[in-house]
């Protein structure tokens, strides 16, 4: 469903991403790994429309999306999380989820002002969806807390829930396990797998936690210094000499 062809991104003299290609099929978890500064997040930023790539193509469900504004890409069904959690921290947990459904209940102002029946139904639907996902990630009891006051692991889960209420087809997770303890990482692991199995969402994952990556990925792409280094199943990657060299340094 997603195909990235020869993606390049140049910042002045720095070629941050150089001819990276990857593809994601439906019902698949694909990971992007690589040392720090390899350009993984830059690839993400290009895919989600934050950067306009200087070369290459990005096809989502057969449509070229490179260079489209970020909010349009997200409306197509490609939604991302961030390396550093970005919540609306002064808003409550539910409100965070309601904002994400803006597109679903983008009714006109007047019908909202006088609360027409159709507006009420839509509003109720979005509340139900929010409640469902809060329950799913175990935050329902904290629904009316300010999002900024949640513990870090809870904020991470809320961010994923916030993406899921938009009903995406492809979820892009940028280091979702960063800063989590092993127990939380395990929960996250189960959550991501369930997203794929139960909600039929494809996932692109950037992650440093190798156990997580090896556990749940269907395929892995390795990037080093902006260049694609290898790609394949977790088993192939584990045994790839170039990858071992890049991670452990030249011996």
């Amino acid at each position: 469903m997603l195909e990235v062809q020869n993606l390049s991104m140049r910042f002045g003299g720095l070629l941050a991403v150089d001819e990276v290609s990857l593809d994601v099929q439906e019902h698949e978890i694909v990971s992007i790994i690589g040392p720090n500064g390899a350009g993984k997040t830059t690839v993400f930023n290009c895919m989600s429309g934050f950067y306009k790539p200087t070369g290459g193509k990005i096809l989502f469900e057969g449509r070229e999306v490179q260079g489209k504004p970020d909010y349009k890409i997200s409306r197509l069904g490609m939604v991302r999380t961030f390396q550093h959690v970005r919540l609306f921290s002064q808003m409550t947990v539910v409100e965070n989820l309601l904002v994400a459904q803006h597109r679903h209940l983008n009714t006109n102002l007047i019908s909202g002002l006088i609360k027409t029946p159709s507006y009420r139904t839509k509003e109720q639907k979005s509340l139900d969806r929010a409640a469902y996902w809060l329950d799913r990630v175990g935050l329902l009891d904290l629904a009316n807390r300010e999002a900024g006051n949640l513990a870090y692991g809870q904020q991470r889960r809320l961010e994923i829930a916030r993406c899921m209420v938009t009903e995406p087809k492809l979820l892009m997770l940028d280091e979702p396990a960063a800063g989590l303890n092993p127990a939380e990482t395990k929960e996250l692991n189960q959550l991501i797998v369930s997203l794929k199995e139960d909600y039929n969402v494809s996932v692109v994952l950037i992650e440093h936690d190798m156990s997580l990556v090896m556990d749940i990925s269907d395929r892995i792409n390795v990037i080093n210094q902006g260049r694609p280094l290898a790609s394949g199943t977790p088993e192939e990657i584990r045994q790839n000499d170039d990858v071992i060299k890049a991670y452990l340094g030249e011996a």
Partner: protein
Amino acid sequence: MAANNFRHALFCAFITLIISYPIIGFNLEAQGINVTLTGADASTIVMVLLAALIVFLFQMFREQIMGGLKSIPHPLPQSNKEPMAENRRAKIESWVLTGIVIFALFWPFLVSRGSVDLATLVLIYIMLALGLNVVVGLAGLLDLGYVAFYAVGAYTFALLSQYTGISFWLALPIGALLAALFGLVLGFPVLRLRGDYLAIVTLGFGEIIRILLNNWTTLTGGPNGIGGIPDPTLFGMEFGRRVKEEGNTSFHETFGIAYSGEHKVIFLYLIALVLAVFTALVIRRFMRMPVGRAWEALREDEIAARSLGLSRTAVKLSAFTIGAFFAGFAGTVFASKQGFISPESFVFLESAIILAIVVLGGMGSQIGVVLAAIAVTILPELAREFSEYRMLIFGAAMVLMMVWRPQGLMPMRRIHIELKRQE
């Protein structure tokens, strides 16, 4: 540490001296055609020195003084208590608010004409501040030229009444819509800017409107302003002693009561009250609608908001337009109340005062903004005796407020949403 403190205090006292001495210590006196510079008398110099001494002492013992300020009991003694149950609090709040509105309806019949007039002004400021609260408090766009939309509303009514003889009731929606249109048009180029840059550009736009009104003499009368703006009518009944327009009747004759100038003032007050309540209710609804949440989301984290499919331009423009709409409302009422407007009513200071109201009241909080609007408009009237020092007192109050309660009089409270567990 102590030496450092001493040096700092000395420096501050010195600054006080070199600022205040030339301003207060010298007088320019006209003698015939010449102007001579004379030194002030001894008592003034003593006062200047005293001021420097006070600054010195304050800076010297700043830590202790500020510590003492903190130990003063909190202005809201209940702030540490467990909050009330959410639904009970909401119920009490709505009763109290309804009570206040009903009281405000009957209040003008109990007090003097002057206070009703002042209260109308307060209501106009409440409308303005509620409108700006959308832009600054909710959407987080620092708009320093808000008064421009107020001017558009006022001038729309004034010009239309002058050239076409339009009535207040027709001018009210036209003025508001035109102000909203200006908000939309001005918003387009500036909304890609953020923070300080946005503030400067909106400041510029505000000034452009004022200067345009000032210089387009053929249309707006320039600095002479426009007079003879009609008062509002009640179903075709005028409030003047004599009927000005054909076909209208006069209020006091219809009801067979003696003419009184107060009728008009009270009527205007009631109109302003209704409009202010309308403004508050509409914006309150907006805050609970998707559009209101989008405003806040954009303020909180623009990148995250965009990643969830919110269009930055659409959201910001809607905030700007809706804010301008209510400023247009306020402007029309203002024009009708004054009967005469000139560009002088729409200087930057007005924008600053409205902004001060929003900040003082607590960004995003409607009740806070209303309280602050009342305080900021009435306090200067009460302090008329020290008219020269009004701005000084105003500034000092702002500084104290920011030290003591930086989140504003009544910080915004999030609404509580009940959720049912989904199966």
